[in-house]
């Protein structure tokens, strides 16, 4: 009767979870009872046998065999890994994407109305009928003159570039243009022009 109780304590003892009081009870019982002493000893031996079971090792090519069986990584994952591994190229690609996007947008969004940008608007004459912006003879325009959806006729002086988008630049014999004159008519010209501007902005020191 008492021994059955003690077996429970023996297991608590083997789990390392016996409390002090129970432990004292168990130890004094073990000194008196040879059966329980043998029982504990046999349990400890059984544990030791199991623990001594020699440690087996998997065959040496195991890792290689498992790796060979792994499914191919999904494409998206490979792509995102590539992005992660090339942060600079990723940033450049995003930049280029946004830039071309905004360029196309600025191309397609424009309407057909005549648009002029110049620092001295008051000196320009606008011929509505022919859709022409005229730089009158004897006047001097400071800075660039950019016209959209119309031609430019230069009779006077421009101290900068003259650009006609979707139009032509006509220079009279009296015209003096300090910068370059450009007519832009197709979207690729437009892109090229934007790129060139960007390049000029980024490299202001170079001539």
């Amino acid at each position, binding site marked *: 009767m008492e021994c059955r109780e003690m077996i*429970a304590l023996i*297991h608590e003892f*083997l*789990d390392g979870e016996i409390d002090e009081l129970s432990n004292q009870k168990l130890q004094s019982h073990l000194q008196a009872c040879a059966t329980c002493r043998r*029982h504990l000893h*046999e*349990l400890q*031996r*059984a*544990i030791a*046998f*199991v*623990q*001594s*079971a*020699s*440690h*087996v*090792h*998997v*065959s040496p090519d*195991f*890792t290689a*065999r*498992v*790796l060979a*069986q*792994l*499914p191919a*990584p999904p494409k998206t*994952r*490979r792509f995102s*890994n590539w992005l*992660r591994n090339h942060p600079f190229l990723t940033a450049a690609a995003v930049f280029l994407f946004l830039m071309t996007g905004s360029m196309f947008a600025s191309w397609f969004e424009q309407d057909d109305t005549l648009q002029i940008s110049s620092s001295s608007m008051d000196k320009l004459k606008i011929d509505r009928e022919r859709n022409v912006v005229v730089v009158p003879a004897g006047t001097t325009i400071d800075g660039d003159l950019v016209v959209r959806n119309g031609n430019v006729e230069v009779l006077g002086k421009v101290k900068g570039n003259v650009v006609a988008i979707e139009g032509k630049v006509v220079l009279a014999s009296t015209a003096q243009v300090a910068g370059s004159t450009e007519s832009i008519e197709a979207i690729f010209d437009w892109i090229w022009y934007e790129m060139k501007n960007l390049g000029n902005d980024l490299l202001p020191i170079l001539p």
Partner: protein
Amino acid sequence: MDFVEKRLTQRAKRGDREAFAELIEIYKDKIFQLAYRMVGNREDAEDIAQETFLRVYANLHAYDESYKFSTWIYRIATNLCIDRGRKKRPDFSLDEEVEPGQGMDWYSRLSSNEKGPEDKVVTQELQETVQDALSQLAPKYRSIMILRYIEDLSLQEISDIVKLPVTTIKTRIHRGREALRSKLRFM
């Protein structure tokens, strides 16, 4: 160790195969050992170990990092062992017992060569008796005894692996110990 494993699992989750290979290196022998002691032969044990790692890889995205990685991988392996036992029970093979040195790899053979031939036979016999005693336990006791005494895990970790309360684990260990005692007492 836990930190290293966490880093490795995070990298493996992102599809980094090198990190996964390192995880295999850390766990392959432990998992193989568990499987070998569960099923009793190398071939099936390697199959189970392989399947364990393939499942780990396939389910990495679902791995909950609040658990230890070891808990998770041991759970997968234990379940595979028990499933395998269910399927394979009817067709056990007589050849398995005849083949000498099963489960003994080159390492253990090398080390046992240092002893005299008689000791070698005794060790061999003891190995087989222990394996025999283990395989006579019901799988739910066998797995827990292996996790406790061969893999050397704590009661708490075993409870996490098999998702049963610690008190249940204790009861099973007590019964498992008694069963092993009665089989090994005359050794």
